[in-house]
């Protein structure tokens, strides 16, 4: 039986989007502790990039404290610190994520590890073996599959859109539940559907709100501008470099360009750099069921991820003359192939680089987006950037409209907004509270929020007791609560309401009958049987709805209450009425007694 019925929310580090932060949320629900996401902050090069796990517990093992860890999707700001957390800090419990996330996470983690350690020479970082060991602790889940973490805690994943394999998770203990959205998108795009959840009515919905204040330019206009820029550059013989994170937006842009090239009958080559991206396409094909309806339909005729106009890239192609478009990793131009190509092409103003995502401070991507045109490379070399620098934001997060839609779908009792910036979002809070009549919280990083729930505890009632209670008295009124007597048995995490007799029997206790007898003195000089007759007539007249009987032995019964008359031992003019009832008839018994104490009406006989 859960003793504590409150929800405890603690945000170890939140953020996404604008300030690519690290998401890591701790929820304590009915005594169970769950960690939601375990992200890395890519802007820092020291320990600040990982969440501060000492917040959870100062001493004592994390494995004992946490019941499970849930990862919503493969973006590094949601899973980047996972190997550090499980292998370097120490956690051996279960880690839950969807199948595509489980397949793609290790690739991204290894890629990032390589760049950070091999290229930058970092030391306090997780190793390849640690990534492998960490993934061994992962339990993959399917959408809408209820997974029992233990006897009391269960989780269920819902489709979140956003990127391949992204899920929103429902965490349930008994009748209390929390839904964590991770990053989600309520509008479908070219390769993913929209997020969806049923009317699960959680006690708390935790949702990302960084983009809540955004009113997004339509997709059509973004795509139109993107294609226009690419087309213009290619028409004048220039080369277009698109640095990508390989998984996610890259697929979307590929589909977009492929369709455009086909429609406009363009001949310039499009390349997709190898390695990470090949594997990514391979995984997209594997998880075709995670993409949207339209893609799945066309997959039957022709695999949408096999492109006619897009070929694999070879390093040597970068020196080829003439126009071309190249997708290369990594996305922020901080190392690797995309940086190599950038250096080759930067000096020609006919060329263009299109950054499709936000760049973290310190990366080349960020510098050129800020307007820097002279970059210092290794060996004090200065690179002059003459190529056009463009930014196209295609990121798919829920905006205010999307958040309202999700709340409308799930019908939570409370809403908690997680945001990267320390902005005041009073207006959104009021909007949600007014529209849905729920409480809305927006804690800052490191802040604790306590939410009280009203748990409803189901109790089984025995059929016999139910029948008995509905039999007595007036017909039950569905709207009015009915008072009843029973015994509540709490045993083995179950609650049963049974009749007292059955309870006694089950508990092996002897039943004792309590009987009350009350003496009422009546002034009446006549004989006992005449007094009895008077009492009988009086009661018959007053208690019309009750069964009043005059028995042959001279006693009166009112329902199961017994009334007998005797003469007073000392005073013949006084009669003593003995009113006797069992404990169950207490109410009627007391009423009768006070009625008789008022005296009898003068009789005419």
């Amino acid at each position: 039986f859960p003793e504590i019925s409150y929800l405890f929310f603690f945000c170890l580090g939140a953020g996404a989007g604008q300030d690519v932060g690290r998401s890591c949320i701790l929820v304590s629900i009915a005594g169970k502790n769950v960690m939601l996401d375990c992200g890395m902050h890519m802007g820092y090069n020291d320990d600040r990039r990982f969440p501060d796990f000492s917040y959870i517990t100062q001493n004592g093992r994390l494995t004992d404290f946490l019941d499970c860890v849930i990862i919503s999707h493969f973006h590094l700001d949601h899973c980047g610190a996972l190997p550090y957390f499980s292998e370097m800090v120490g956690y051996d419990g279960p880690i839950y994520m969807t199948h595509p996330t489980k397949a793609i996470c290790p690739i991204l983690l290894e890629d990032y590890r390589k760049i950070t350690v091999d290229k930058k020479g970092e030391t306090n970082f997780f190793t390849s073996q640690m990534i492998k060991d960490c993934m061994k602790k992962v339990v993959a889940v399917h959408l809408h599959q209820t997974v029992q973490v233990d006897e009391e805690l269960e989780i269920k994943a819902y489709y979140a859109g956003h990127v391949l394999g992204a899920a929103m998770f429902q965490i349930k203990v008994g009748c209390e539940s929390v839904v964590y959205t991770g990053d989600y998108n309520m509008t479908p795009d070219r390769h993913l559907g929209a997020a969806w959840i049923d009317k699960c009515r959680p006690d708390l919905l935790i949702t990302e709100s960084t983009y809540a204040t955004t009113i997004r330019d339509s997709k059509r206009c973004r795509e139109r501008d993107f294609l226009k820029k690419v087309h213009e550059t290619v028409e004048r013989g220039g080369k277009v470099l698109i640095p990508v994170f390989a998984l996610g937006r890259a697929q979307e842009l590929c589909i977009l360009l492929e369709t455009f090239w086909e429609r406009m009958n363009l001949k310039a080559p499009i390349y997709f750099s190898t390695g990470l991206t090949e594997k990514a396409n391979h995984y997209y094909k594997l998880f075709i069921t995670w993409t949207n309806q339209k893609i799945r339909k066309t997959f039957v005729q022709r695999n949408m991820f096999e492109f006619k106009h897009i070929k694999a890239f070879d390093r040597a192609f970068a020196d080829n003359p003439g126009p071309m478009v190249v997708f290369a990793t990594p996305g922020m131009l901080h190392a690797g192939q995309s940086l190599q190509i950038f250096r080759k092409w930067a000096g020609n103003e006919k060329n263009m680089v299109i950054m499709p995502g936000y760049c973290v401070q310190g990366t080349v991507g960020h510098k050129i987006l800020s307007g820097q045109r002279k970059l210092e490379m290794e060996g004090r070399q200065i690179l002059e950037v003459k190529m056009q620098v463009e930014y196209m934001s295609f990121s798919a997060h829920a905006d205010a409209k999307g958040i309202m839609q999700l709340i409308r779908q799930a019908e939570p009792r409370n809403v908690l907004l997680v945001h990267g910036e320390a902005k005041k979002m009073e207006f959104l809070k009021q909007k949600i509270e007014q529209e849905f009549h729920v409480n809305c919280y927006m804690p800052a990083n490191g802040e604790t929020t306590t939410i009280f729930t009203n748990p409803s505890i189901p109790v089984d009632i025995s059929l016999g007791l139910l029948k008995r209670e509905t039999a007595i008295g007036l017909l039950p009124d569905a709207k009015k609560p009915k008072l009843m007597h029973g015994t509540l048995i709490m045993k083995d995490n179950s609650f049963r309401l049974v009749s007292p007799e059955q309870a006694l029997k089950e508990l092996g206790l002897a039943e004792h009958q309590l009987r009350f007898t009350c003496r009422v003195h009546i002034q009446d000089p006549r004989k006992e049987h005449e007094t009895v007759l008077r009492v009988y007539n009086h009661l018959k007249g007053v208690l019309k709805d009750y069964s009043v009987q005059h028995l042959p032995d001279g006693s009166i019964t009112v329902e199961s209450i017994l009334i007998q008359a005797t003469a007073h031992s000392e005073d013949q003019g006084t009669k003593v009425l003995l009113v006797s009832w069992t404990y169950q008839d207490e109410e009627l018994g007391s009423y009768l007694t006070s009625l008789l104490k008022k005296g009898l009406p003068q009789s005419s006989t």
Partner: protein
Amino acid sequence: YEDLHTFELQAPTRVIEWARGNRVCVAGYGQSGGNEILQLLAPPTLQVKETQGLCPERDFKVECGGFSNRPVYSLKHVPDTSLLVTSGPPDSSLQVWQVSAEDSDVIKRVSAVPAENGTGQPWAKIATVSARAPWVLHGSRLDSVRITEVESGKNVYAAASRNGEELSSLAFLDCHTLLLCCAKGQLCLADVRQPPSPLEAASVPSAPCGERWCMGVGRGPQGSDSRSRPVVRLSSGGHLILTDVRKTSESLASAKCRVPSPSSGAEFLCVSWAPALEGCLAVSGFDGTVHVYDAQSWDGSGREAEPVFVHKGHAFGGAGGGADPPQVTVHAWHPQKPRTLLSAASDGSLHVWDWVQSCGKC
């Protein structure tokens, strides 16, 4: 198009008001309450910057918001303050709002200017100016025109007309000259320095009856007399009349714009001068389009004019088929960028567009 951005508001708006610092205000006009007043920060792509740095964002951001029980039919920013004034049914009172202080993003209602006496007054039209103190000019009929000091609520001026004609637009030509346009098309001038005298309404020359009119007042060339500001009137039948304020009974030039028949009413009629493109004006409210005209080519004949550009984007929006096609509710020019306009429609869409300059002037 040179540029086109399309957005979707959660609720349609019939006001677009530019405020300082690249901000735009919109507000809902739903009859059943729960309307939002939003102050949006326009995307950096709409800023005019000397060094065109990168434009990382193309989205509007909701900077502040407030809740209004009434539908908002008119919204004006009060210059040199952080106040907004709104008006709307069921009466002609005004609501004054404070756009947030530093620590909150909520637009709060701070005061109200009470309605005129008499029942059944339609909603008030408003205009604002920063004179000795921030003023709001408001009224629903010619006989109820007043100027109220926004912060103190004090009445500064009241028109003395007995004419109960319904007003459709009003404007400050400068801080002491008012120009009023009646729904039937008459123009009235008033000087607040003079004692209030009965306003003379000059009617529209050769105008067909039964049409509703509205007005647009341009900035005029810099440093010029306020009386040389261009004035145009638009009717629900598509007639456009240019007038010199000094001679309101005559018309300088006129034209006719293409109006779909049958005309869908005058609810959202809107005409405005381009602040940075001489002689250009925009017209909307007949259907889902916005027309841009070059008025410099007009003469006195009143024949149909050819638009320089037509924005059709709103007509294609919304669910196809059954539902009524969206109607453009309001448009507004960008204060600095010459060919950039914002337009909103009844389906909640908000477009920002910029058309390619053809070889002509506009």
